[in-house]
């Protein structure tokens, strides 16, 4: 046991200074913020100042109404209107090219956000052009579409002879407010994007954690084999002390890494006052993290011990990445229907269990039975993998050059310990 700690301490202290570790430490939060939190933050964040949108109204009949509805519907927190409509006069001949040139120059000068061209026959023509430097701003386009549609519909209804008050009633806008229900019956307001990204971020965290440690582990084994330090090590301690020490040291690294990320996550959530997950859920996620991590660490040991060249190490890593990538691929399906049979089945495949559950829990809490069963499956396969890794490690650490064939591999695992 003492030797295990000595190895663990060495692995931890030496690796924590390594470039690979430091890069991964910062890379993950950067990716987390850019792919997850940032779009959600941007999308849900209200504008702070009014935006000017120009309108070229060929018939001249809609501009006033449009301006009125926009002002009424979208107001900034400071009480100012969110959008100010600026009419651009059209040549009496009906030619819009002059107005368009003027509007284009205004867009490019940055004076207006963009502009819409309302055609002459607004009542029948259903195409409205929106021109802007930034057409990816779905918030503006969505809002404009809604307002224009409502105005036109209202007008169409009125022309058919409906009472204006009835029309108002009939066309009142509908707002969709999404509320996530948790098992305990608590409500929390959360958009699809937030739920999805939270789940996704947790899964990515796990992916990175496992990948970093796995790579460090395989690399450290490779180094010890190629510089033959392994012979000194194995003459100083039992293979199982060495393996346990390595896994322990790396788990320490992973904990450090996770602690760092959690600290960043907390800082972000406090700053922007978002609750990512409740405490109980976090504990559950943590349990899956640890169990999944141990399973993968053992797999990496078993796969890495026979490796003796850089090329082989990369091959091994890419196979393992493939397995880890599966949950990322099915994440979209899982979010839409976290309790589908496919997702449930995938949750019981040990190498996928941890990532699948980490993905599912923030979206919709699986049943207690399913949680217990998956945990048992994961823990048992973790123990099994560790036992196997111990055998493989002991027998293949001294193999240089040739990698054992599958058959030899199996016989190694089955060979009796001395």
């Amino acid at each position, binding site marked *: 046991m003492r030797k295990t700690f000595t190895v663990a301490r060495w692995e931890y202290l030496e690796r924590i200074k390594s470039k690979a570790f430091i890069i991964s430490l910062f890379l993950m939060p950067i990716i987390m913020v850019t792919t997850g939190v940032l779009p959600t933050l941007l999308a849900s964040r209200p504008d702070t100042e009014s935006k000017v949108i120009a309108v070229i109204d060929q018939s001249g009949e809609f501009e006033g109404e449009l301006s009125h509805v926009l002002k009424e519907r979208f107001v900034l927190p400071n009480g100012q209107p969110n959008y100010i409509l600026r009419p651009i006069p059209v040549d009496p001949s009906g030619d819009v090219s002059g107005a368009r040139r003027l509007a284009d120059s205004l867009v490019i000068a940055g004076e207006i956000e963009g502009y819409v061209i309302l055609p002459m026959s607004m009542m029948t023509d259903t195409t409205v052009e929106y021109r802007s430097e930034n057409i990816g701003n779905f918030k503006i386009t969505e809002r404009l579409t809604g307002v224009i549609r409502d105005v036109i519909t209202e007008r169409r209804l009125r022309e058919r002879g409906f009472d204006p008050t009835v029309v108002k009633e009939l066309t009142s806008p509908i707002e969709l407010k999404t509320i996530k229900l948790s098992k305990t019956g608590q409500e929390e307001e959360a958009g699809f994007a937030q739920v999805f990204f939270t789940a996704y971020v947790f899964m990515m965290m796990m992916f990175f954690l496992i990948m970093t440690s796995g790579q460090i582990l395989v690399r450290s084994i490779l180094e010890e084999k190629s510089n033959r330090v392994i012979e*000194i090590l194995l003459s100083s301690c039992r293979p199982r002390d060495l393996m346990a020490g390595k896994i322990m040291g790396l788990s320490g690294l992973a904990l450090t890494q996770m602690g760092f990320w959690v600290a960043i996550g907390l800082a972000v959530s406090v700053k922007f006052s978002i609750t990512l997950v409740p405490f109980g859920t976090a504990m559950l996620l943590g349990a899956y993290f640890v169990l999944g991590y141990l399973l993968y660490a053992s797999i990496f040991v078993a796969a890495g011990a026979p490796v003796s060249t850089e090329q082989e190490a990369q091959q091994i890593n890419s196979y393992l990445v493939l397995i880890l990538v599966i949950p990322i691929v099915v994440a979209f399906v899982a979010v839409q229907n976290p309790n589908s049979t496919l997702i449930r089945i995938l949750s019981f495949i040990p190498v996928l269990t941890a990532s699948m559950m980490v993905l599912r829990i923030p979206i919709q809490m699986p049943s207690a039975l399913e949680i217990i069963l998956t945990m048992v499956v994961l823990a048992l396969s973790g123990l099994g993998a560790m036992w196997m890794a111990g055998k493989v490690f002991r027998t293949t650490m001294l193999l240089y050059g040739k990698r054992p064939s599958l058959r030899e591999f199996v016989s190694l695992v089955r060979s009796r310990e001395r």
Partner: protein
Amino acid sequence: MLNVTRVRKTFASVIAVDDVSLNVRRGEILGLLGPNGAGKTTTIRMILNIIPPDGGTISFDGREFSEDTRDIVGYLPEERGLYRKSKVLNTILYFARLKGIEADEANRRGYKWLERFDLLTAFERRIDELSKGNQQKVQFIISVLHDPQLVILDEPFSGLDPVNQVVLKDTLMELKQQGKAIILSTHQMDQAEKLCDRICLIDRGKVVLEGSISDVRNRYGRNTLHIEFSGDASFIPRMPWVKTSHLYENSAEIELNDHEHVSTILRELAGRLEITRFENSFPSLNAIFLNLVGGAPGTNGRKEGTG
């Protein structure tokens, strides 16, 4: 100290070590000799319990290998290398702690050894900043810092300059004085001849020669000529009195047929060469080695280090 009795080891279909027995006493250096692929490294690994033997016994002071045994042996592998990115002293301390030495004590001894090998200024440097020779000295320190009772050194002199070779030789002699048992595996026969008390020559997994240096020499008798000369000596192997010969640029070692008259031979040689040294003595270990394992070492195609 160490008793190896009839150990065997087979890899797939190759018999790497076949019935090897050897023993090392305290205060003695045993030369473990043999061509490449003879089974030396495999034997050493079995002694160190890195790989289990298929048969035979290995005992330390009469006791079988136990976990405590690991702490009383020190090993310098043939192929060198250390953690490239790690600091010198840190690395030394790590291995010392693995051998059960407390941090403070390891630190104290580490400085002492570094000083002895003139590496004191390098203790904070990274391993890959050191020269090959210095890395090797660090590795030697690692193999002896924990004050092992049995020290196994595989080619400890290769890569060292003459000055450091002397430092290492003195250190080995000192370890011997302290009553350590030392196994020295080497290809350098002259070194083995000078340093070892006894030798054990392994070829193709079997012990082919064993005994003290003087025993071995006596066994081969005094019918060897050591000569130094100038001139063209290429005629020597064809002479009728030559049993075997090893020619070098300006010297030769000639094993004579039985009952040859040395003085006749001297006259004959003096007629054709400028002789500067002429000695009738024991064969060198090198000649014995070459005769026993049949020609140049390493031609049998087997590679050492795969097991």
